[in-house]
């Protein structure tokens, strides 16, 4: 059995949509082998020989020399002996006519219109139109799939004027539907699922009203740490506070006697703070509970006495630690104080300088305070401040005397410590300070 096969212009390169026949290499009547060139073609990109896809006899040329045709156009017919090939290629065609093969079911449904399974499935558009025009949908003829009433069916029904009669008989119903439609019209469609993203609530931008020269300071990591520690301490530790007055007249005399020699010998100032630290450390030795911390189900009493020393700068306060303060004499403490103060000023404190404190002393007198309410250096149990030394009239043995006086303030963790023990502790610090005299030794 003989059959005809078309040779088509192939897709020779991307973006090419057409080609021009340059020259026919075979003429009608010629025998053509498979892959044998039948013509030369020209395109924007390439010039090429076009091979035959089958073996057979060229029977007809469809596109002449010099003509330009789109890709896919048949340019000649070849008669082949083998019917199989031709049928196979013909079979391919229907396969590609689309994945949506809806025609047969549609035809079937229409033929089956007596059943009309879609007759009572009304689309939203149909219902809306029916309501708008007060139409009984049972009166409308459906032309859609499965006898469905389409939007156009309703419009055609309205246009035909068939619905007018209904309007008169069912006026009550039409009033209600009419108002419903009006309301719907105002909310656009459903009003529930509009595509716009819901409006975000207006957010007050901090500082938006700061128009009168307010300025903002960025919070440094150090400031942030201070803030966090302070807040944690105040919110977790129930603070209590007490104060005692100390007569340091003898201490003042002692220091005045020794300070110049000490400066010559050690090269540093002999401060009151060194004496205070010694007095505090010795008192802690007598009342070890002052050197402790709260651990929820127990209280940890620390063996080492490491005094945190609050050292202020322009914009921060740090608490470097004098480790094993009980092992040091007054001169040693004075040197430590000097060293830590210098490191703080120069910003050279290391992490180890800051760790391990068990009790904090703050020399608030250095900036003129006579009374302060310190916040405990978390997680310690207490903090003591040393206020300014001022000369005041004091009654001693029913006589007035001018004495050098200083206040010591103590904030305490009331979970660990109570008034009695703290009173005794402060009394011991006071006794230690007042017992310094001109014979006391620094070393």
């Amino acid at each position, binding site marked *: 059995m003989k059959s005809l096969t078309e040779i088509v212009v192939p897709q020779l390169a991307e973006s090419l*949509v057409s080609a021009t026949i340059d020259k026919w290499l075979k003429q009608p009547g010629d025998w053509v082998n498979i892959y044998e060139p039948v013509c030369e073609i020209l395109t924007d990109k390439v010039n090429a020989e076009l091979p035959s896809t089958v073996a057979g006899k060229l029977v007809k040329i469809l596109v002449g020399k010099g003509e330009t045709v789109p890709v896919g156009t048949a340019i000649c017919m070849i008669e082949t002996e083998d019917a199989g090939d031709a049928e196979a290629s013909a079979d391919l065609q229907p*396969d590609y006519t689309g994945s*949506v093969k*809806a025609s047969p079911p549609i035809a079937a449904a229409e033929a089956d219109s007596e059943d009309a399974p879609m007759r009572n499935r009304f*689309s939203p558009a149909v219902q*809306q139109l029916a309501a708008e025009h007060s139409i009984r949908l049972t009166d409308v003829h459906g032309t859609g799939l499965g006898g*469905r009433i389409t*939007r*156009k069916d309703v419009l055609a029904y309205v246009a035909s004027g068939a619905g007018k009669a209904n309007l008169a008989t069912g006026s009550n119903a039409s009033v209600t539907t009419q108002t419903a439609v009006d309301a719907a019209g105002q909310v656009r469609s459903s009003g529930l699922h509009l595509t716009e993203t819901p409006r975000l609530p207006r957010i007050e931008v901090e500082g938006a009203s700061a128009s009168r020269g307010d300025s903002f300071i960025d919070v440094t990591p150090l400031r942030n740490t201070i803030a966090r520690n302070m807040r944690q301490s105040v919110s977790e530790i129930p603070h209590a506070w007490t104060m005692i007055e100390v007569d340091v007249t003898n201490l003042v005399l002692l220091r005045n006697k020794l300070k110049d020699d000490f400066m010559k010998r050690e090269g540093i100032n002999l401060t009151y703070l060194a004496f205070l630290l010694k007095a505090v450390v010795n008192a802690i030795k007598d009342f070890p509970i002052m050197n402790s911390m709260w651990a929820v189900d127990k209280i940890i009493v620390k063996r080492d006495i490491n005094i945190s020393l609050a050292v202020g700068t322009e914009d921060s306060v740090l608490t470097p630690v004098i480790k094993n303060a009980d092992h040091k004499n007054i001169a040693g403490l004075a040197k430590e104080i000097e060293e830590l103060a210098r490191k703080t000023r120069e910003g050279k404190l290391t992490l180890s300088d800051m760790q391990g404190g068990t009790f904090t002393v703050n020399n608030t007198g250095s900036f003129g305070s006579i009374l302060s309410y310190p916040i405990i250096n978390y997680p310690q149990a207490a903090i003591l401040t040393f206020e300014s030394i001022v000369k005041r009239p004091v009654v001693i043995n029913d006589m007035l005397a001018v004495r050098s006086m200083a206040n010591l303030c103590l904030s305490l963790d009331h979970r660990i410590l109570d008034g009695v023990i703290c009173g005794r502790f402060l009394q011991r610090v006071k006794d230690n300070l007042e017992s310094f005299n001109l014979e006391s030794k620094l070393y």
Partner: protein
Amino acid sequence: MAAMDYIDAIRLAMKEEMERDEDVFVLGEDVGLKGGVFTTTKGLMEQFGEERTLDTPLAESAIAGVAIGAALYGMKPIAEMQYSDFMFPATNQIISEAAKIRYRSNNDWSCPLVIRAPIGGGVFGGLYHSQCPESVFFGTPGLKIVAPYRAYDAKGLLKAAVRDPDPVIYFENKKCYKLINDDVPDTDYIVPIGKANVLREGDDLTVIGYSLPLHFVEQAAEELAGEGISTQILDLRTLQPLDKEGILDAVRKTGKVLIIHEDNKTGGVGAEVSAIIAEELLYELDAPIMRLCGPDVPAMPINPPGEKFFMLNKEKVKEAMRHLAQY
């Protein structure tokens, strides 16, 4: 006014914009000396010199990066991705830098950049010369995306993209280059970004699409008119931002909508168009929203039957349109 091929309209737009504004320049692989692999930039180097037609290394990330840098500096680069398939190495630059710089700098900086990239298959291009990557970039706030179908829009949209102060991705269809030919004025006009265009008026069904498949839709609509089916055709033209009002108006007219694109169905532009319609127009729909798109397979096959299966064509489109019209 003369009929002009789609590719010539693109070239003309670049030429006119480069003549108009010295800050406009093109860069990409082979865009200079060779004039582009599709000849899109042919003649630009001769006219404007090699400093305004930069031949770049084969590094799309660098093409996008250089273009973004130049744009931030005030230039108006047109960066060419030789095939949109090669665009993915530049995705980070485009999505993370170009799209975000205005937001990130609190409106202080902008990126007036155009990225041209040919999309689409049916050209015997196989896996790496046929992709439609719209959905990769679609939905990225900060990017505008246009995809012209007609030569008229190809010129007008490219000029609008060049003049836009923000990054615009210009997806041109490589199969349209020589296939689509229509009247293009030689005047200086732009097609506004964000406006869809009604290609054909009708009242039986609405077809919404963009780029090449509209060619098949127009052919099918013409044939279906003979069967008494009248079709409304909407060319989106801009994919981002979508012309919501245009879409809703087109759907309202018929209540039946078919959305068509070559990019695969799942997560494509059609999904968003469909969602907009479902959210806004439930009570005006007369049939389920339909989509006809590329299949959800990894890539265009190189074998001709496979390619034919993958691609949309007039017959497939016509079947789907008839089915919806009869619903």
